[in-house]
């Protein structure tokens, strides 16, 4: 299988653990991943305004590049990017007239992207496509004694028309954890919002959410929380540390990108991770479980 | 016949009853419309409408029950489909599709019935006499 890859800005900096481990993991699963030679910031939050076209130019321009790259699938790891790109594509498919305006605006691009030429795919759906058999072949029969709370966040599940799974009762993340020999923990706040960019305006809101999500995961017996979004990661990880510093009774739990744990499960050395990027150090728990 | 000449097909259950109510309420409306009472508006065939135009009618009015109220459940939907199509056909025949009108008038809408007739008569009067070249 071959896919193009769109990293987005954060995966090249603070979120690089997500990229590094995913690329290694996919290599092991025989997926040929090729980063787009040219790509643009997606804009992060999709403008829901019917008439705000300028914010849709960047995502479509990226898809033009993906189309030129020639591969049928475009892997997008960051949930925010996934959401924005996917919705921009849906928007131009639903509004052909506005699509034309966007095309007219891009005077340097000779290619036009209409919506179906390149399929945007997230990591979970790609793993599903690779299939349980292939994964089991790489991972083997071993099961790691790890209880993992899969945190979906918002951007992969909402709105419904771009969702990767059921919006109230998704199972895809848990299914993948299971496939990699990890024990998924279903906890009630796995589809709850982390507070997103409001960390900049209203950190109390994010703190409240982090507290809820983290406590719920711990209460349900998880060793780790995994996420697919660098912003969720930050809000759950860094903010968790802040809460813990103020409230000594607050229990913490390490947060990781899903690929960090899956790659360990697939026998890839944890050394490729930069653990300095974690505010809650996952290494003690990894050591305790004999994985480091 | 009084000009403009209008033929109206009323369904028995709603529009014709609405026209009767206009009568018992002693409302008045222009005398241009001559009714043909049918069981259901869906009985009206394209042929009937074309025949009316061919024989000198300047306008054709079809009255049925409101959507959802049809005595025969779905008859008025059939009518709606048919009239929509027929209007296209009229255009091809160089007949202004406004000369054919479908209206929903219930048995309780005597007042509305008179308004429909007045308005339609005025519109047809404005459109003037229909000259059919060939039909």
């Amino acid at each position: 299988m071959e896919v193009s890859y769109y990293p987005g800005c954060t995966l090249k900096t603070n979120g690089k653990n997500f990229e590094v481990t995913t690329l290694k993991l996919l290599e092991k699963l025989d997926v040929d991943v090729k980063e787009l030679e040219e790509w643009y910031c997606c804009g992060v939050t999709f403008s829901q305004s019917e008439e705000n076209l300028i914010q849709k130019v960047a995502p479509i321009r990226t898809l033009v590049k993906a189309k030129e790259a020639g591969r049928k699938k475009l892997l997008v790891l960051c949930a925010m990017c996934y959401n924005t790109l996917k919705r921009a594509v849906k928007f131009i498919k639903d509004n052909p007239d506005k699509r034309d305006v966007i095309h007219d605006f891009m005077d340097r691009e000779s290619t036009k992207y209409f919506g179906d030429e390149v399929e945007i795919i997230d990591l979970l759906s790609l793993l599903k496509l690779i299939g349980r058999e292939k994964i089991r072949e790489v991972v083997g029969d071993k099961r790691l004694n790890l209880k993992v709370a899969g945190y979906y966040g918002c951007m992969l599940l909402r709105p419904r028309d771009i969702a990767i799974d059921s919006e109230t009762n998704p199972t895809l993340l848990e299914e993948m954890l299971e496939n990699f020999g990890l024990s998924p923990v279903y906890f009630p706040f796995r589809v709850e919002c982390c507070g997103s960019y409001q960390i900049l305006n209203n950190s109390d809101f994010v703190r409240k959410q982090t507290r809820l999500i983290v406590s719920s995961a711990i209460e349900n017996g998880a060793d780790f929380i995994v996420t697919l979004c660098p912003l969720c990661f930050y809000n759950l990880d860094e903010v968790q540390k802040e809460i813990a510093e103020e409230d000594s009774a607050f229990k913490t739990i390490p947060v990781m990108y899903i690929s960090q744990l899956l790659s360990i499960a697939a026998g890839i050395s944890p050394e490729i991770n930069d653990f300095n990027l974690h505010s809650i150090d996952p290494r003690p728990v990894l050591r305790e479980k004999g994985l480091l | 016949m009084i000009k403009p000449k209008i033929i109206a097909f009323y369904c028995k259950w709603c529009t014709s009853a609405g026209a009767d109510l206009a009568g018992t309420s002693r409302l008045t409306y222009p005398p241009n419309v001559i009714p043909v009472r049918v069981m259901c508006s869906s009985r009206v065939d394209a042929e009937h409408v074309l025949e009316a135009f061919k024989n000198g009618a300047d306008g054709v009015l079809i009255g049925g029950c409101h959507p959802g109220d049809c005595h025969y459940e779905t008859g008025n939907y059939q009518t709606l489909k048919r009239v929509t199509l027929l209007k296209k056909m009229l255009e091809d025949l160089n007949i202004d599709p406004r000369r054919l009108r479908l209206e929903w008038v219930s048995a309780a809408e005597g007042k509305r019935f008179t308004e429909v007739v007045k308005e339609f008569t005025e519109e047809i009067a404005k459109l003037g006499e229909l000259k059919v070249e060939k039909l």
Partner: protein
Amino acid sequence: MEPKVSIKLPAKDAARVERFAEITGVNVFACYQCGNCSASCPATEFMDVPPHQVMRYLQLEMFDEIVKANTCWICAACITCTAKCPRGIDIAKAMEGLRQIFLEEQEFARYNIFDIKKKVLEKLPQIALVGNFRKNIL
């Protein structure tokens, strides 16, 4: 004493009603005030006016009340409200429309990048910054 009327109908805010419709196309009259948006919104506690009440104000064209409230600025665009709405109303989109209308009317930028502490920027993912700007700057 003169009798007081606290809601006068019809309201006269035609320009904003029209602008709101242009931007969002949301039919606010589908709302039957079940409150599921307010119940499921993670940020309701931080809002002066909960989302379902914003929808009510929209139905009555009471934009002035919405301008006064912080609701659309607290909203994190997580789309939970839209996902939960039994009547299929895109409430998140309505919030976006309100943000845009108010930005157009007032300040165009509610945010100054120099307000952010440098230390925060070290670990903060770029997407948080960009996302925030996108919602607060026109």
